[in-house]
């Protein structure tokens, strides 16, 4: 492998059509491979930085939308570290100003990545020095590059969340309405979720045949836990209807009412891969972190010491996040460290550098949601009077009823 101290490998590929296709297949941020395709004849770091960011999956216009263009190069450097890029490949490197090679080298070195400069014009390549500034250039071919890059991991089959609309019936007729109104395939998907939630609810130890319950909170807390992993509002609704039916079978009647939407609260926005993927298209560290932490239900008063120590910065709250969401917080940790923040300092600060308060945290999260166009997914409620926000539903009452035998037999 290429040493990571000021070295770069120049890959000579005169007919790069095939290599271009292979690089497209290998380019996957999850395996640490970023393939940059710079706009031809680019000559400044500021102009090529968006191409570096796009190679890491950022939105094509993220810098302008988030008004971060003056920090473009610094953000590219931060994200290379946050995303743990191990191979930085610059396609058509002979079509960018040659002094940018030094900048690419610095960028790769800071991130601990190997730098590969792919050139197609061999006549120009021959005039390229073997040492450029602090960078020693090693010469190689397309085969060596492809051998060094990790194989891309096939994308998992896309999860199709149970999307709305679903029947608006209460739990007594919900399932039969689904059977009547939905296509057979869609009903099968709904019923699978329904049956799982029903069985899980029926197996709860705190449920007795006599229909006795400890308290309103017991049921509400359970329903909150049941729906915490829901990947869509549709899935949440199906789980709730199934739980209502299962509880009704043991004489517990749970009434749910729709909760009012509240734009600054994202308590029900699960940090799924799709949601994290949308947030990872943003470039501003504090917005990404606020969006992820808010979706994960984390406290806004986190301090640097709470979130990570050491180079990897993957302990504390970061370690509790799913893998696909960790770069969102990691990038903020790295950004704060660059600002000189230490353990007791806050992870999130406002524009004047003081700790972000709850309102500012909410605004940052809401802006992240807006920029990531997640607004349609967010439907949540402010917790109040002990009620739990359940994907837009509130438990309004729990009571005991006399249940006919036919309901128990479900």
């Amino acid at each position: 492998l290429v040493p990571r101290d000021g070295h770069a490998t120049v890959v000579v590929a005169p007919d790069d059509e095939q290599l271009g296709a292979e690089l497209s297949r290998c380019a996957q941020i999850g395996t640490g491979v970023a393939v940059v395709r710079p706009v031809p004849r680019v000559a400044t770091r500021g102009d090529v930085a968006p191409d570096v960011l796009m190679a890491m999956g950022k939105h094509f216009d993220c810098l302008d939308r988030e008004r971060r263009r003056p920090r473009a190069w610094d953000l590219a450097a931060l994200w290379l570290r946050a995303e743990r890029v191990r191979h930085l490949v610059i396609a058509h490197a002979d079509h960018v100003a040659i002094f940018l090679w030094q900048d690419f080298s610095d960028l790769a070195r800071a991130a601990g990545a190997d730098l590969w400069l792919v050139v197609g014009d061999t006549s120009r390549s021959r005039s390229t020095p073997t040492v450029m500034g602090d960078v020693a250039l090693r010469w190689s071919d397309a085969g060596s590059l492809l051998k060094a890059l990790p194989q891309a991991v096939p994308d998992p089959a896309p999860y199709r969340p149970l999307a709305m609309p679903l029947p608006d019936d209460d739990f007594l007729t919900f399932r039969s309405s689904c059977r009547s109104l939905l296509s057979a395939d869609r009903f099968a998907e709904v019923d699978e979720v329904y049956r799982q939630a029903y069985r899980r609810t029926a197996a709860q130890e705190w449920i007795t045949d006599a229909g006795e319950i400890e308290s309103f909170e017991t049921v509400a807390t359970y329903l909150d836990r049941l729906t915490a992993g829901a990947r869509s509002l549709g899935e949440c609704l199906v789980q709730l209807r199934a739980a209502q039916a299962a509880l009704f079978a043991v004489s517990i009647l749970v009434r749910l009412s729709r909760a009012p939407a509240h734009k600054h609260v994202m308590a029900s926005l699960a940090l799924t891969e799709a949601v994290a993927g949308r947030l990872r298209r943003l470039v501003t560290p504090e917005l990404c972190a606020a969006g992820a932490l808010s979706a994960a239900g984390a406290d806004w008063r986190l301090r640097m010491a709470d979130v990570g120590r050491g180079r990897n910065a993957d302990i504390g709250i970061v370690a509790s996040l799913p893998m696909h969401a960790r770069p969102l917080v990691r990038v903020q940790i790295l950004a704060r460290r660059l600002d000189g923040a230490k353990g007791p300092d806050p992870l999130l600060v406002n524009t004047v550098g003081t700790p972000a308060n709850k309102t500012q945290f909410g605004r940052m999260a809401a802006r992240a949601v807006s920029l990531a166009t997640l607004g349609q997914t967010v439907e949540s409620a402010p917790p109040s009077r002990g009620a739990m926000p359940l994907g837009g539903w509130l438990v309004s009452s729990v009571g005991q009823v006399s249940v006919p035998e036919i309901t128990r037999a479900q």
Partner: protein
Amino acid sequence: VKPRHFLNLDGAATVETDFLALTRRAVADIAARRALGVIHGAAGLGKTFAVETAIEVLGDGWEAIWLGFPSRPTMRLIAVELFAALTGSHQHQDRFRLTRLIKAELAVHPRMIVVDEAQNLNRECIEFLRHLGEDDNRRSATLLVGGDGCWEVLSREPMLRSRVYRRVSFRPLGPEQVLGAVRRFHPLYQEVDDDLIVLVDCYCGHGNFRNWASFTLTAVELCREHGRVRLDEQIARNAFALLGGGVGAA
């Protein structure tokens, strides 16, 4: 863009030549592969008509974006014009941002980017088009259409030549092809002797559709003025005179 005949000649029919069939196949292939194609040949041979016809039958929401540039355009000019053609908006952003916007736009729905007079492109512009064509998210294909010298210019650039998936080289119709083609082209020639058609082709048509369209329109107007119902040698010679041959042409 609806295909139209030169000078909007009334009564003209689309003649199914080999080149038209080849162009239709080439355009369909590059559309399917989101690839790059080149259509070239001398002026007046029906390249533009063939491309318009081929794109029209693509279906599935394909939209043609026609671009033409002066000699030696800059990358910025291409970016500005292409963005304007795609969106109807003239932006004055720097070309790097424009390029990103164009790439995002090209990912939206299928477009056939047709660059006419492609022989005017220089290396920089070819690099730029290559860059757009490498975007994995694009749903567009690119067709370079050019006149004399087009292929010579484009083939000098290895980065482009190796990416050309389909190429159609238009040539003038030969005498045998002309006899079959012009009778299908316009009703004026349906009962005309072969010798007269050969005469017109020798002195005016030269196996070139644009020349034949000019001649046909002129001959139709002369027939109408003189109460003739079909083309004869006198009408033909008068038409030659009006088309640049002067008095006593041919």
